[in-house]
């Protein structure tokens, strides 16, 4: 034994004597700890580094000339006056990109999207020309002066008319193709038909049913509203031939691959960096024309090009969400036990099929539509169509169409309950998948990992005093007052995804983590995901701390730089915890495996004599003899057993065996002013079960944010078009972003049902509140009118729509 070793051991032993296990655990700040977020120190001081903070020498600015029409042929484009504006350097059009074959780009859904309008524009505000200038002012002056001559064409706005024989054909570029990336299609405006389930068995269930109910529901087109809009800085180094692309990317590694595929640059010559990103919510997953034009501009000019969306650009052009016209039927026995479900959806995808989901899933995971209920048979069809609207169809704070599915089934449960005169909590209790049925195989093909829905709902009912609320409601109804109680007991499906069924451009949806432990006992971890505000720097550090026994404060987490971190598929669909955190935990375990070897060498015992104890290995039966992780780290660089490589670093690529299925029980109470239609949310109680809870404070923050967005969607958000395709209300003057004043008070609660297949049992929570929140609000609003035989009211529940219901019922006076 060398001298240093003896010393270290002596130190370690004194430490052990003074610190109890509990104290050492607390010092780690690991899993379960309510740590404050590391990243907030810079955010609350205004010291973040967002893409628009990036300034580079000789940087120029790009901005788009956009189409005033929703559907028109471009007869000519005259750049001359724009080029005469002092400071304007270049004006790019589709004709300039054509020789590079960059006037179109592939979408993540197998379709293609115009980078700059090629002969035709397909939606209002579509990108027509890209003006590059010395500063933003000159670019803005330049775009006013590009003269575009349009010939207007008939406009298709109503998706229900898209497949008519006499519908105008929108996508002439693909009109003769039998498919546009997602299976056979039957009309030039048709994109795909997707089905799930057993049609015959479902028909049979309906034929023999004691009761059936049917409802048409439209989940309106909405737009994610990150505080920061999309943008990028592209910088081509003419000498090295290397392109650096900074941008607001939720999936930087995928962006690198896409840029390589469409530009022909070697991936090794591309560095993609997502700096701090101010919210994503699905809006920042896919590629946009602004990125391509900035890259081309930088290659052509040899200068960095910055492009930053305005708020109007963001709301009216980059990816929207939802826009599902749904029709649903339930069959049930006389006690309300559901025996079959049928759902048909018409999906409005806008002008290009640019949704961002795993590629085999044109309607995302919509077939999670049987929800938390043990429904024996179901059949679902989804048809996607083109219209003259902006493209998209992304998962706005949800996992790929789960929000639409959860909204549908949660509303339908209420419709069925009303039809049968059964209480809305009771109908859920009767239909829940029981705790003992997990892992549960749904009739539409999913294997739910774990859950206990009955316990969750009963806990929720007790917490809000459900029986008393119903009593109060009955009294109020007798007095002519409107009070509603809404329940949502939803199940999410997150963590895309297993390689057998989830890929993007053929790349499987794994996640990765690299950990390097430094000699003096701190570490750096790099993960392939990208936080857009979720607090990854804190959460991942906590997980790794618990796995490797180094305090989370001493673990730096880095994401977003493709030159630095391992390849990963990014952050969306609540996948960071189910997939990224699993990679982090497993990488930690690999570190521990090597550390064990080193500890055995240090303590001169065999590996099997050692046991892990919070932050050290201890010799079994001799608790005083131990090697702390801090000392093992130094030994990894200074004192190794023969045959072991120096260093303490690993990388793990994690392919999840299954999705995870977080769930919740939400109860919302509203009072409605029947004279104005205003809704006041008196109470909102949210119980979430996301399995193992890594940082309860961060979870609570995620739930608050998700519920606030759910409130926004249910009560006011909607992208509206007039009949000629003008997008109305594409600014925050009209588009509803609630402030702290309108936002209800949130009561949060939880149960813990760990995921059996996840390394630490965690499930992901960022999106649950949005998924479950929307139907909870909607159910509460409709419930206020349930005694007047109202079964459904369209979202968003703005004052005038609610007033309209009151007015139609004659109760507004």
């Amino acid at each position: 034994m060398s001298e240093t070793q003896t010393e270290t051991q002596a130190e370690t032993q004194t430490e052990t004597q003074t610190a109890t296990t509990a104290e050492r655990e607390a010092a780690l700040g690991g899993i379960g700890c309510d740590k404050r977020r590391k990243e907030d120190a810079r955010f609350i001081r205004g010291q973040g580094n967002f893409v628009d903070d990036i300034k580079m020498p000789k940087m120029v600015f790009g901005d788009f000339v956009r189409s005033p029409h929703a559907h028109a042929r471009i007869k000519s484009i005259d750049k001359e006056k724009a080029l005469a504006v002092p400071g304007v350097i270049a004006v790019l059009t589709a004709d300039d990109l054509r020789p590079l074959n960059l006037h179109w780009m592939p979408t993540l859904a197998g379709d293609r999207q115009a980078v700059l309008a090629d002969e035709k524009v397909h939606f209002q505000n579509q990108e027509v020309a890209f003006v590059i200038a010395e500063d933003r002012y000159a670019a803005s002056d330049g775009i006013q002066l590009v003269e575009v001559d349009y010939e207007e064409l008939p406009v298709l706005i109503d998706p229900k008319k898209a497949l008519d024989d006499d519908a105008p054909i929108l996508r002439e570029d693909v009109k003769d193709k039998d498919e546009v990336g997602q299976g056979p299609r039957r009309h030039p405006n048709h994109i795909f038909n997707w089905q799930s389930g057993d049609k015959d068995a479902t028909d049979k269930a309906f034929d023999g049913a004691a009761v059936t109910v049917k409802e048409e529901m439209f989940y309106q087109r909405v737009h994610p509203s990150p505080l920061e809009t999309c943008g990028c800085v592209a910088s081509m180094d003419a000498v090295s031939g290397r392109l650096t692309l900074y941008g607001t990317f939720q999936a930087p590694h995928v962006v690198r691959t896409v840029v390589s595929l469409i530009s022909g640059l070697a991936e090794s010559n591309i560095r993609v960096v997502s700096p701090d990103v101010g919210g994503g919510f699905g809006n920042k997953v896919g590629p946009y024309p602004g990125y391509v034009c900035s890259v081309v501009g930088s290659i052509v000019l040899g200068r960095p090009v910055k492009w930053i969306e305005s708020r109007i650009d963001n709301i009216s052009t980059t990816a929207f969400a939802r826009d599902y016209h749904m029709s649903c039927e339930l069959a049930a026995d006389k006690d309300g036990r559901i025996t079959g479900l049928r759902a048909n959806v018409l999906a409005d995808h806008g002008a290009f099929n640019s949704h961002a989901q795993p590629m085999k899933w044109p309607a995302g995971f919509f077939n999670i539509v049987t929800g938390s209920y043990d429904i024996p048979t179901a059949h679902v069809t989804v048809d996607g169509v083109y219209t003259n609207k902006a493209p998209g169809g992304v998962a706005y704070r949800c996992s790929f169409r789960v929000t639409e599915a959860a909204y549908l089934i949660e509303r339908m449960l209420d419709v069925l309950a009303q039809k049968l005169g059964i209480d809305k909590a009771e109908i859920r209790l009767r239909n829940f998948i029981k705790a003992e049925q997990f892992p549960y195989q749904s009739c539409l093909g999913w294997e739910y990992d774990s859950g206990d829905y009955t316990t969750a709902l009963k806990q929720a009912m007790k917490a809000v005093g459900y029986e008393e609320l119903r009593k109060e409601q009955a009294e109020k109804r007798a007095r002519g007052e409107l009070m509603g109680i809404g329940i949502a007991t939803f199940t999410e499906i997150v963590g895309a995804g297993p390689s057998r069924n989830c890929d993007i451009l053929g790349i499987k949806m794994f996640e990765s983590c690299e950990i390097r432990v430094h000699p003096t006992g701190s570490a750096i971890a790099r993960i392939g995901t990208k936080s857009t505000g979720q607090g990854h720097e804190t959460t991942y550090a906590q997980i790794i701390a618990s796995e490797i026994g180094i305090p989370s404060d001493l673990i730096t987490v880095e994401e977003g730089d493709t030159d630095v971190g391992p390849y990963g598929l990014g952050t969306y669909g609540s996948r960071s915890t189910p997939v990224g955190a699993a990679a982090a935990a497993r990488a930690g375990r690999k570190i521990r495996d090597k550390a064990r070897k080193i500890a055995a060498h240090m303590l001169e015992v065999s590996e099997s004599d050692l046991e892990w104890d919070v932050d050290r290995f201890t010799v079994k039966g001799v608790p005083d003899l131990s090697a702390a992780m801090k000392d093992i780290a130094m030994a990894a660089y200074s004192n190794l057993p023969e045959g072991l490589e120096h260093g303490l670093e690993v990388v793990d690529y994690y392919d999840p065996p299954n999705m995870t299925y977080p769930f919740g029980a939400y109860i919302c109470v509203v009072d409605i002013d029947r004279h104005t239609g205003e809704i006041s949310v008196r109470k909102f109680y949210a119980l979430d079960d996301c399995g193992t809870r890594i940082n309860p404070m961060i979870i609570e923050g995620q739930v608050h944010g998700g519920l606030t967005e759910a409130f926004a969607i249910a009560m006011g958000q909607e992208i509206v078009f007039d009949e000629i395709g003008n997008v109305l209300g594409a600014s925050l003057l009209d588009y509803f972003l609630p402030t702290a004043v309108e936002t209800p008070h949130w009561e949060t609660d939880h149960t813990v049902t760990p995921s059996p297949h996840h390394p630490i049992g965690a499930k992901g929570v960022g999106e649950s509140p949005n998924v479950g929140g929307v139907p909870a609000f909607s159910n509460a609003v409709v419930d206020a009118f349930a005694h007047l035989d109202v079964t459904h009211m369209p979202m968003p529940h703005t004052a005038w729509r609610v007033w309209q219901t009151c007015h139609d019922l004659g109760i507004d006076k």
Partner: protein
Amino acid sequence: MIPANFEYHRPGSVDEAVSLLTEHGEDGRVLAGGHSLIPMMKLRLAEPAHLIDLNGVEGLRSIAEVEGAIHIGAMTTQAEIIASDDLAARCPILREAAELIADPQVRACGTIGGNVANGDPGNDMPAVMMALDASFVLRGPGGERSLAAREFYEGPFETARDDDEILTALRIPARGAGQGQAYCKLKRKVGDYAIAAAAVVLTMDGGTCSQAAVALTNLGITPLYAEAASAALTGTAVDAAAIEAAVEAAVAITDPAADLHGPVVYRRRMAGVMTRRAIETARARATGG
């Protein structure tokens, strides 16, 4: 979202400002708090070639009592209106309405003069000034004149102010005994303009309404003084029948446009609901309720 080029001027006195306005004619535009004008410039809906900033002009920021009347300098901010306890005691509707305008950031810059001079039917203060029977003091190259708020509004963003005149002050008559005031505004969220709003000022004299004024926000192409509604209350006990008549008369003069907050029929109905609530509140306040 970037304004077109303009030249910036910062006069130190009203006279200097007036002569700049006279010099630049239609191309000149006064800048007060900027919270209506600058958003329009960013959207290039307004492209003034000369911006004449009043923030350096002396003597336009004040709240004073002159022989019982209240004189407010045009550059007094909405936040200052809210902060003044004296004003809230003398004329409580000003604080009540100002608190319903925009948000604290906007109110910290936005001025009362800008709010009434703007000519946007969505601004809240014009209806309040009409209900209070306030007058506006204007200074131009030919000197000073005073115009009644009720005569000031001519069309959307069109007022009786001449292009070369500056609004320097607002004058509000003294509040007599038994006067109750109320402003009721229906809006979706903080920062939103009214779906419908009503200002009511009425005086109760031994159970009878001796004087009443009703005015409406965002329910037509200009702010609306509801003369018939006001008359329907005067001389009554402001009982259910009188209120019903006033509400009907108020609704009758509304002509709002449909927007994302609702169709015309909804906004007109809400004009009625807001008018009713404002009358009931003003009456209760007038009688010490």
